[in-house]
């Protein structure tokens, strides 16, 4: 069954799974992992733009990832976000996939995607991967599902202090995903709750950012781990930092230990190494995934070095 939404007001009554670009959903429909009624939202008006104001930026949930990655305001003021969007999947996917869909996509765990295997996110009691194969599994384990969250964009927005607006409420990105203990879901929106916008605060003067994914093929590769780093440097000293990591836990994570080790330190090589060494603080990796702790430290280190080498964001006043 298919419903098409033309106004936001219809959302709450709609019965079924929302479909935006369909790039995640149709993979699941084809393999038989998902079925049930669909509610197509691509026709909702006014949700595919970017509105850059002095006090931040509002991004429509139906904007394509390609549109996000190429938008001049985003490239200039939120370069890490643009890099993250440009670095994931393939050009064709980025053209069809939406910001909302990327945030709310379901896990890419092979157990979840396989129609014949058990998985808590499909409603089964136990996670197959936890007992079975999880060499790409979580290293900050919140229990339940063994596979990390899929969204690169969610991770990036965490580092940008992003918020989301839905048809019901407004909340932080962290609250969109919660603590990772809801093992049957990949986000905490209620059925019928539609994500309409992503909201970003304005960038800070003097900030630099870098996004990095550890991959072993050149393109179109899901990351082993990924990280987004924002550094705020004043007179050669790091005054503030945001460091987020993806593919490491059931939800995207902020690495507070790394941030604490950066603030107040000189913006120079020794600082990056010392801070990155704290990336694995608090990690409780699944056995086969333990090697990813080293990968995380090294990925964060590299992202810090790259951010430090990047131009600072030249914040401009919009309009």
């Amino acid at each position: 069954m298919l419903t098409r939404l033309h106004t936001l007001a219809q959302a709450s009554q709609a019965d079924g799974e929302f479909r935006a670009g369909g790039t995640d959903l149709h993979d699941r429909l084809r393999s038989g992992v998902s079925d049930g009624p669909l509610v197509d939202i691509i026709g909702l008006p006014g949700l595919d733009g970017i509105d850059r104001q002095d006090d931040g930026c509002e991004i429509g949930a139906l904007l394509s990832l390609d549109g996000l990655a190429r938008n001049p305001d985003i490239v200039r003021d939120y370069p890490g976000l643009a890099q993250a969007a440009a670095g994931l999947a393939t050009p064709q996917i980025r053209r069809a996939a939406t910001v909302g869909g990327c945030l709310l996509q379901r896990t890419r765990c092979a157990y979840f995607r396989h129609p014949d295997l058990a998985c808590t996110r499909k409603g089964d009691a136990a996670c197959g991967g936890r007992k079975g194969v999880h060499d790409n599994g979580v290293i900050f384990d919140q229990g339940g599902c063994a596979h990390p969250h899929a969204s690169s964009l969610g991770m990036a927005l965490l580092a940008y202090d992003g918020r989301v607006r839905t048809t019901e409420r407004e909340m932080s990105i962290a609250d969109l995903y919660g603590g990772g203990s809801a093992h049957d879901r990949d986000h905490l929106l209620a059925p019928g709750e539609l994500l309409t916008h992503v909201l970003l605060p304005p960038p800070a003067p003097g900030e630099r950012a870098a996004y990095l994914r550890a991959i072993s093929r050149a393109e179109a590769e899901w990351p082993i781990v990924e990280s987004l780093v924002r550094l705020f440097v004043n007179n050669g000293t790091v005054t503030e930092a945001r460091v987020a990591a993806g593919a490491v836990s059931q939800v995207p994570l902020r690495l507070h230990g790394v941030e604490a080790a950066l603030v107040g330190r000189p913006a120079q090589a020794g600082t990056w190494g010392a801070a990155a060494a704290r990336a694995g603080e608090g990690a409780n990796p699944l056995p086969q995934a333990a090697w990813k702790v080293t990968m995380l430290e090294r990925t964060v280190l590299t992202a810090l070095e790259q951010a430090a080498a990047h131009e600072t964001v030249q914040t401009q006043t919009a309009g």
Partner: protein
Amino acid sequence: MRTTINGEFFEFEPDAAETAVDVIRERAGLTGTKVACGQGVCGSCAVLVDGEPINACLMPAIHMEGRDIRTVEAHGRDELHPVQLALMANEGLQCGFCTPGFVMEGIAFHDRWRAERGRERPTRDEIAAAMAGHLCRCAAYLGIYAAIADACEGEFDGVNQRLGPRVDALEKVTGEARYTVDLALPGQLEGRILRAAHANARVLSVDTSAAEALDGVVAVADLLEDHRQVRFTGQPVFGVAAVDWATAERALKLIEVDYEVLPAAIGMDQALAESAAKAFVGDRKTMASAAEQAPLPTRWDGNVGHARINGTSWRPGTARRRVAAARGGSGGALAEGAFRNHQQTHAALEPHAAVAAWEGGRLTVHASTQNVHHLRTLLADKFGLEKQDVQVESQHIGGGFGGKQGLYGETVAAVKLARAAGAPVRVVASRLEDLSYTGQRSGSRNEGAVVLGEDGAPRALRLHADGDAGIAKGTAAALLYGLISPWVAKDLKDRVVVNNTPPALPMRGPDAPSALWTMEQLLDDAGTQLGLDPVEVRRRFMPKNDIRDRLLDWAEALPAWRDRDANRGDERFRRGVGMAAASWVFLYNPNVEVTVSCDSDGLTVACSTQDIGNGTRTSIAKAVEDAIGLDRHAVRLDLGRADAPLGPVTGGSQVTASVYPPTYRAAERLAARLVEQAAERLNLREARAGRGGIAHAGGVMPWEEVLRACEPVSVTEKRVTERGPLGLRLNMSMDPDSPFPGFRRSHALVVTEVEVDTRLGRIRPLNVWTGIAAGRILVPELARSQVFSGAIQGMGYALYEKKVYEPATGHVLSSNLNDYRLPGIGDAPEVHAHFDEAGYEDVAHGAIGMSELATVGVAASVGNAVHHATGWRPHETPILPQAVVEGVSI
């Protein structure tokens, strides 16, 4: 709902879950657009939506509303785009299954590039970024790079015909080529297979009543043979034919199977464990074989099959003593170690597929197969038919790589269902089924040793190879190594470790990559102990052989080799160059026949062989061109039909060596007959066959004209058997340096340059130089394509590809193209092909096969290059970042 497809309005009422590709292929019947993954990974389904490439497999059908959709059919043979011309000219394709996707993405890229950058030549990286959403399993990436760059530079502007080397490229770049998955016979039903839910179980009962009662279900068929026993998860149990895929899928869920579940051993590690379950109970003669040759006589000990004799071992006791002595510090340099290779999946982009139709007692099967002729025999045997009552056809095959040589589940299901339904049935494996259940290259655990004397000459070799062929026998890496290694004391042993995973099949150069991965790396290490560099140690390893020595001279002179110790990269990104020598046996099929005939319209070659992208059509047409000078594109080809004269399997690197000589001779004889006719009928004086036509006193009469003037002629020729010593009829001819009469070997040397990111564990192959000594290169463009794809597929084996099983259930976790990682265009190194063509003059046309030769040594060369770069020796393929990060200290 209304959309525009290729400029025409198209109205339809979409279903909720319908995608654009369903509309395009099923409703509009435009089968140029392919589906190879259905997941947005491979790009085979790319179409232009308002000018931008989009994965039609994921695009909801209703999103087509009001959009302008363009498919490859918009660029037919009269409206070729420069990108299509460039792909044909640059060999940017083999099997062609991925080609429509690359064409559409290429066109979009080209048009945007020209608008923004004019005739500037795009870089490799720019092309790779744009093509990142496309996979080509044949790995025609280097041709694709060149094609797109040339087209952007304007080289094909205003050109309206340039056909390039491959005679069927035009059908492929235009989407005209029809593959088995594209067939739609009148009344055709869709078949799906219910697969076993357990890895080892007895099927007690199957209840299909609910499924049969479902609206739209036409027939069911029992696919269980072998005493109701299933021995791997995913083994076919029952088939359903229904009006469409979705109905058949729904019906599968309604079938109830009652199993008696037995303990299983999943993978070789479980099968070798102390208290391992018995994977195979029953008559082992019925066990599948992963071997192309007859499986070795085997002594069974639980799950382990020991090869009773190893015919290529030689004084193994001496070898053992010498290894022990060397270990004790006397008697030369010893390198030994344990190595592992994971299974690699064929992953042809066209999945396994068959369409079967019965007419009275006659059966016609269209199948994606590497061997139409043999498939007919297998079908006749299985279904109790006379051969002449079975027809097998296959015009275009979207890749095979060894995985489509026999009669498999999907074909059996199609035949049984078609018989039960009284209608044609198509069975197409889903990507999950294809990556899970349709075969793979065996995995292995090898234990090897190399002992060299102080002078560097080999003293002893050991290879104990445990093969993981799933629920099959027939691995023979040690036996094979015996054939391609020097004749010294060698202790060679093959064991196959049978377990409850799908049976393995041969894959391009079966068993050799793993044997060389072990032995060529150990050879480097042993050489190092003696202070011998890799070239020198290989010179001394084999008895003197001119061909092999020329290859070593060539490698030694390569600037990258010479300077390899100077170009070491930096602290983090370390560079290294490594080499591996390889060798392969020469096969051809002496029973092959071809018929060359002509009538007033043209010349036709008939043979029951097929073209899976290897270029059989082109090899045959080129033989005619070489023999009588008729342009290869003018030769009509009647292939892929089992009732044509016997053709070779597309495997064992034997196609060209089997078909070229008889085609050449037949064309010559046909020309001679035409000369006689023409001289008589047209009164041509001093007529003789010349290049391109009949030369006579008054000039040259082109073949086209000759044919119009002559009566039809037909000539059949057989591949003549080359005779070995004592006049023995042998498929293989003598090699002076081989102890085995009848084996003639080809040689290769692979030199690979890698860059290792020691921090994040990524290995980037930068350059591969492949030296091939396989005699004369009859079709140079195809040979280069084989070298390129051999190198890139070898990279997949070395660096990315790994079939992973769920250890408790036996399902396959690497069952989609995100998790089963094929090399993409950005992963393709530069490949430099070098052909040393002399030394095989005693063989017909001086040429032996080379397709497998081009890939078997690649992984070993990568291992040696990584070692050169980092000082760390990889032991396992694929070499994943985890191993690098754990192995290399920084």
